[in-house]
């Protein structure tokens, strides 16, 4: 049993998944933000956001992803974004965000 406080949560597994129900835009972002904050407050350090239901993401959404990344990073954590659609993948790559946190596409959509 390792007791390095930063990396582990006693109860939950290290990797935690979060799946937004739909798009991440100005309307939905604030609520998602609250969820994510809570997760981190619970001690999640390795967060995987599953974007399978997300088609559209706007500036608020991107800002949210980056803020999440920033928060996790400060705690030596890590953000992964998975099942990203083609378009979103392009967008994230265009902002070179894929260089900061892991972004993977949806295998179904290729």
């Amino acid at each position: 049993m390792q007791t390095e406080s930063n990396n582990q949560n006693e109860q939950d597994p290290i990797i935690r998944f979060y799946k937004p129900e739909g798009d991440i835009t100005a309307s939905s972002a604030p609520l998602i933000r609250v969820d994510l904050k809570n997760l981190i407050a619970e001690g999640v350090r390795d967060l995987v956001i599953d974007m399978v239901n997300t088609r559209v993401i706007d500036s608020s959404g991107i800002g949210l992803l980056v803020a999440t990344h920033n928060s996790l990073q400060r705690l030596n954590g890590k953000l992964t974004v998975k099942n990203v659609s083609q378009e979103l993948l392009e967008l994230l790559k265009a902002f070179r965000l894929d260089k900061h946190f892991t972004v993977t596409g949806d295998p179904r959509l290729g």
Partner: protein
Amino acid sequence: MLDMDDAFIKEYLAESREHLADIENDLLEIESAGANIDDNLVNKVFRAAHSIKGGAGFFNLHKIQELAHRTENALDMIRSGEMTPAPDVVNVLLMAFDRLRELLNNYQASHLADTTEILVALSGMVSANLAPAKKESLLRTVKVTAPGVKTVLNIPEFDLDHAKDGRHYLYLIEYDMIDDVQRKGKRPLDVLFLLSNSGTIIDAMFELDGAGTLDDEPSDRLPFVVLFSTELAPQMADVIFDLPASQVHVLYSPPAEESPRMPEPIAGYERPPEVVESVALEEVNQAQSYSLPSLTAAVSETAPAQVGMESTLRVDVSVLESLMNLAGELVLSRNQLLDAMASGDEHIMQIGAQRINLVTSELQENIMLTRMQPVSNIFNKFPRVVRDLSKELGKEIRLDISGREVEMDKTIIEGLNEPMTHMVRNAVDHGIESADVRTRAGKPPFGTISLKAFHEAGQVVVEIHDDGKGIDPAKVAASALAKGLITQEQLKGMSAKEMTALIFLPGLSTAEKVSDVSGRGVGMDVVKTNLDKLGGKVEIDSVPGKGTNIIIRLPLTLAIIPSLLLSVNGERFAIPQVHVSELIHISADQIQKRIEVVGNSEVLMLRGALIPLVRLSDVLGIEKQLEDPQAGELTPDQRARIADRRSPHYDFDSAEPIAAKSEDANGKRKRSAIERRYHASSNLNIVVITTGALQYGLVVDELHDTVEIVVKPLGRHFKGLREYAGATILGDGNVALILDASGIAAKTGLVSMAGSRRAQVLSAETVREGTSDRHSLLTFRNAPDEFCAIPMDLVVRVLQVEDGQIEWAGGRRTMQYRNVSLPLVTLKDTAQVAELHTAQEKGVVIFNVYGHEVGLLAGMPVDVLETTALIDRETLRQKGVYGSAILDGNTTLILDVFEMVAASHPDWVAEAEQATEKSIAGGDVILLAEDSDFFRGQVRRYLEGDGYFVISAVDGQEAWELLEVNASKIKLVLTDIEMPRLDGLGLTRAIRADQRYNKLPIIALTSLAGEEDTARGLAAGVTEYQVKLDRDKLLAGVKNLLRSDEGRD
């Protein structure tokens, strides 16, 4: 998965390649300039490294970035004078750029590459030359930021110092990813590329901190910070940035006076930006106006594409614009045509079709233009190749290049690359001798290789010349013979040039030892094959001991070539115009004279040379059919030979003909009535074909037009057929196969006739005839590409005329000349030639025949030539055309003005004939002895024109015989001096020695007019000398002598 990077990386790579294209030549120039540094050139190379570095950084191509960075540092030191571009320095730089090129070509694997060696070399060079203080700056980084900007960039001090060079502004700009980029429909990469077109991005960072954390207030600011160096002053830079002023920070402005080497920054970046900005504003007011090269989309010149690697092209915007216009025209014409077809209006349909015709041609030309690239693309690499290779071999070689700007189709240039490289390397390796061998041979110790490109006759010509040891034809021939590539019999007939050309046979190598440098003799045949594939021809010309000249001729474009259409048995074929040198028609009655048999080949006599003949139907296995002109029936033509059975037959080595053979042994011969008669189908149409050194005549049924055809390759399954080079679809939708000139020659195993005895005899005769007679000819054009000539002595005057001056009267052309109506004739009136072009400048050549002045309407320009060229009386003979000769490289028709005038004014001829009859009655008969057909005909005409009756002979012997028969009538002898059998002097002596004739006046006609000859002539008994050929003087002289004679009698 779509990789966003792909399109942008491609662009980055394309730009980098452009930068790298000229780098070698530039570095070599820098090297040779030595301490005399050309700022512009060094800057150019520096910028190349700089922009490669910038882009590499952005795409995270770290190895490339690092290498480019170190290279840049080195170049900067050269620029500032801290390091001189000595050869060893330049060598390292060349290697560095080579490595960059390699890494770029395989950029995906570039991060795995090992660049330590070159990096060490570069930094070693740099630190060796840096002042210690500066060395530190390589290692230190400085924090760069501006008020309100959260991001801090870490920039190497060295780089910052360079950015502040007194010419560039330094900006720190903040883009907001959302507001300034995404919302405006741009992408970050677009922004970066836009920036990099007008300056250099020193560093760029997308600041994530701007988004804060989940605990912060949500922000939609995602700042993207760029440290940017550019010559553009703020007013203009703002246009590019398209940002609110608060997001643009000027960190440094260049001072008003330029001091490019060691500038002093106005403000260090540590100072508060306000100060910098206010100073910058002042400077801005005095700023010069800069051109914004990238804001205008136009690329002002077509940038060269790197050979062999590019699948993109840069095209001049003006070409694109004309393509757009033409496309528009095409649409309009098509609409017009469709409309006309719907309404059935034929006239409009024709107009529409014409327009489409024109537009299509222009469209095709313009599209071809987009593919044109300058040959410098390949030429440019040769200085380096020659330099390195000659160093390796220890030879001193100078390379001259001319015609770099000559343009060719992209594919042809790419295809030319390998063959040329091979030949240049050959020249360096095998051609140029070592310095001491050269000095011993009396040559300068350094060898010279020259590369030339130029346009000639619708083709591109590339010449590679070296002044080395040349190629020994005997050696090549011996090698080919030893390797079984040619037979003894074939060798017998070859000229020196043909033997040298054997070097193109596969498997040949005459190098004494296999040298790594140029390969194992696998070269020249591949060169030829590659060039053949491009539709080109290669010729090799060498003088052993003096040097070698290789001439490559290439079409301007690959896909569309002008070709001659011909047919056999009604089936049409095409042959590329580039191989066709002449078209010859031989009527049945001339066959016996013009066609001979030498050895096993049938040959055509053409102006003193023997051209081997081949029947296309035989080559292609088409059964020849004879059409009976009356019954219209087709029967198989079983005549096995082209030559008439009465044609002279020669053995290869003999000069005398074999007794005429009776029918040849080729099986039974059905001697039908058709074959015995000569009629139209016995005429021969021959296409004289030249491929490389070999010339032959292809016998076909019919000749058609010359058309431009699109070449379609034959399928793989046709590859073994050497006779065909491709296929095309003709205007009527039918397919025509394209003949391969060299393939046909190879298939039929043509033997060159050049070496045969008969050919030598012929050419000797030709030479003799050619040198003795000098003609003075007035040359002009009929149609723009038809050249004509008439003897100068006939010409009274030449006038330039306008179309308006020409009148028509009674079905004939005339014009007003000196208040008299001058009748005009044109060649078209009597002969099968082209119509005079309406746009041509026209002239009238006035001469006097049959007692009248006549004008010959023709095209200007007009020239006078003195020539000893041979006049061929057979080839192009028609009414009004006396014969032909090759003058200044053009086949020229020698006009027979007498025939022309006789055709249009038979009444004058009748008059003249009456006068002649009178003179016969009066007894004025002149004996003319002259071996040259041409002069004999001319003189005869003049004399007859003046009313004399002429008896002519071809040599002294014949003249003597005729004299004996006609003694009572002959009143004067006019003789040439140089004649076979019995020459003029001999004839004169014979006449003087004979009681019967010794009082006859004898006029000697000669080109020889030296005093010695005159004396000899007079001693022999000549009464008077006349130089060829002055008509008036001659006629006056004749008249004189006859009158005085009469007086005497």
